[in-house]
């Protein structure tokens, strides 16, 4: 259905006479040819690589200023600092000629954090008060109940809330992302999957992760267009099985190859608007990245931290691309309202499950 831009060779996604990727005007002569079937057969397979262009020096300045302001304000500035870092990082990630933008503010993050603190302080004081009023045995029961409550109810709230906050504050080409996932289906899913994982002595764990990934990806949208996911738990189980086996045989060094395989698996089963994500991360690449990072960190006594973050982001972006016949003509803006309480919660209870972002 589309013709190619004569300048960059990418598909023309609109009839505006302007290529959406290189922004050059398309001469009328190459407007869609009459024979539609011919163009379908030659459906262009275009690769849109991601890139991260941030500089360690600039990042260092952002960090230094933030650190000073955080110490001087006894921590209150932390939230503004976090928003500032995210704004900078997002503005340096590019795909198909456009950069991302982060729209969150320090105020939002502070409010979200405060709500999370109230919840956690309430939980801790419930245990402490029970201990004072009814002794340590009752306190232990209350503590177990609260742990259960946090695992079953609060963790899904944090996952959904933090995705909703982050995505609704992220835009590309002026269109916001959104997250439509709801807490109760996720809570049910996690509860069932955790149960099966326990019963199968952990063998089901990769399925749990795959289901969680499926939930997160398919509930994410760019404007009104959802992302798609078709990863299978069995494939991930194989990756985990070999990861464990070779991990033991190589005294853990295989971890990098495992991690790369998992990254490739997740991305290659994620697609959007006719195009599929591809990650070319390799174990060797991750291993070299880590060696360099550790070396830098030790030699500079940690001062090279901003450069290390830049190296990580640059690698992550450099191996990632979106490939296929990306069609953005159907995308319509749909802005979502969301607070940052979930973000604050996820921050505080430190969910290892959320490490799926690119530079978030």
């Amino acid at each position: 259905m589309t013709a190619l831009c004569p300048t960059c060779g990418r598909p023309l996604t609109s009839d505006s006479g302007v290529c959406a990727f290189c922004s050059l005007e398309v001469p009328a002569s190459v407007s869609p040819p009459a024979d539609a079937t011919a163009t379908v057969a030659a459906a262009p397979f275009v690769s849109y690589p991601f890139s991260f262009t941030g500089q360690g020096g600039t990042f260092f300045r952002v960090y230094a200023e933030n650190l000073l302001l955080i110490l001087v304000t006894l921590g209150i500035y932390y939230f503004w600092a976090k928003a500032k870092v995210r704004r900078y990082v997002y503005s340096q990630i590019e795909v198909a000629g456009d950069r991302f933008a982060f729209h969150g503010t320090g105020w939002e993050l502070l409010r979200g954090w405060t709500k999370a603190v109230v919840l956690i302080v309430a939980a801790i004081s419930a245990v402490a008060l029970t201990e004072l009023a009814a002794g340590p045995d009752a306190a232990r029961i209350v503590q177990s109940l609260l742990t259960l409550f946090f695992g079953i109810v609060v963790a899904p709230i944090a996952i959904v809330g933090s995705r909703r906050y982050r995505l609704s504050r992220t835009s590309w080409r002026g269109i916001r992302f959104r997250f439509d996932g709801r807490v109760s289906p996720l809570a049910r899913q996690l509860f069932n999957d955790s149960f099966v994982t326990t019963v199968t002595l952990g063998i089901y764990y990769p399925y749990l992760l795959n289901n969680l990934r499926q939930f997160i990806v398919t509930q994410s949208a760019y404007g009104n267009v959802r992302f798609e996911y078709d990863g299978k738990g069995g494939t991930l189980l194989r990756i985990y099985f070999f990861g464990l086996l070779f991990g033991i045989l190589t005294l853990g060094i295989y971890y990098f190859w495992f991690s790369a395989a998992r990254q490739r698996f997740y991305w290659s089963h994620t697609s959007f608007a006719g195009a599929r994500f591809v990650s070319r991360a390799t174990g060797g690449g991750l291993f070299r990245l880590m060696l360099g990072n550790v070396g830098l960190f030790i030699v500079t006594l940690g001062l090279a931290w901003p450069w290390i973050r830049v190296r990580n982001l640059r690698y992550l972006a450099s191996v990632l691309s979106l490939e296929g016949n990306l069609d953005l003509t159907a995308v319509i803006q749909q802005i979502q309202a969301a607070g940052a309480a979930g973000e604050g919660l996820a921050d505080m209870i430190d969910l290892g499950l959320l490490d799926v972002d690119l530079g978030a």
Partner: protein
Amino acid sequence: MWTSGPESDLSATAIRWDGWYYDGRGATRHSALIVITPTALEVLPDQLPPLRWPYDDVRQTQGFYPGEHVRFEHGSTSEAVVVPDRKFLAALSALAPEAARRFHDPRRRSGRLWFSVAAAILAVVIGFVLYQWGVQALATMLASAIPASWEERVGDAGLQELAPPSRVCTESETVTAIAQLSSTILAAAPGFPYTSKIVVVREDQFNALALPGARIVIYGDLLGKAETPDELAAVLAHELQHARERHSTEAALRAASVSALIGLVAGGDGAVRGLLTAASTLDQLRYSRRQEEAADRGAVAMLQRARIDARGMLRFLARAREQESNGATAVPRYLSTHPPTAERIEQLRAVIEPQRYAPTELMTAEEWAKVRTACAVRR
């Protein structure tokens, strides 16, 4: 690395700039000409009607750092323009100086650079001062503000864990003898803030420890290896001194404020947090060693005021040293919570010898024999 090539030429004052316009409704990027006028930005997108955005309705959201595109958003809509060239900002301040105050001016960059460098140095200095002195000062201040009854309650909770009733020795001779011994010591230490609680646990460990609120645990093996009541008195005095100086309360507060400080510095970064925590844990051991020395000195003073034979302390430490040399590995100094025993003996010898008083007899040999063996570890 802080000034890239094009940044150095900030004198450009072009009126028209190439950029992109996003309408905030669809994901199409429109090439646009952005024109600077004195009161408004004019946006001329290809194939779309021209737009006029008064500066008051425009906010800058990107373009504060080298390498960033300049991004302006319009009002409460999702419309935006992006100009890749940051010299656009300089042109804006030259051509519309009043309006441009709302936006970032990269010509102030060199000043900002000094600010960044100063910020980095100052942050390191403040962080160091807070860590080196602030943490201890705060812990001392808070520890002295905490009521003794709170500490006792915390200590009781600790006792529940460390000395569950099933393992506590309840032989009445030992319990009474130890209670008497501690009241003899404390009689000479007026103003001791806590009602002490001392328990012997039937466990095969050569150790004793003080929880907050003068909750003291003595392990059965240590009791069995003390050869005279003076040695037991020395151990008790040492632990009571820890309690009196609120050492464990301070240590807990110090740990809390160190982790808060690390939280400030590391933010949400798990790796940095882990490394700093590991480093500070090692470093904090110096406080622990200092506390041991303080407890040793205070204990000797306490024993001397109570006219108990303080040489028991030396004898007991010598025995502890034997225990160490029987043990498998010697812990390097910087990894240890205690100063080397030989050093402790050396430092105390000068204070203890010569003894200028006739020490009181604490109990008869028969009484002592019962006390020592009654709580022996059952094997």
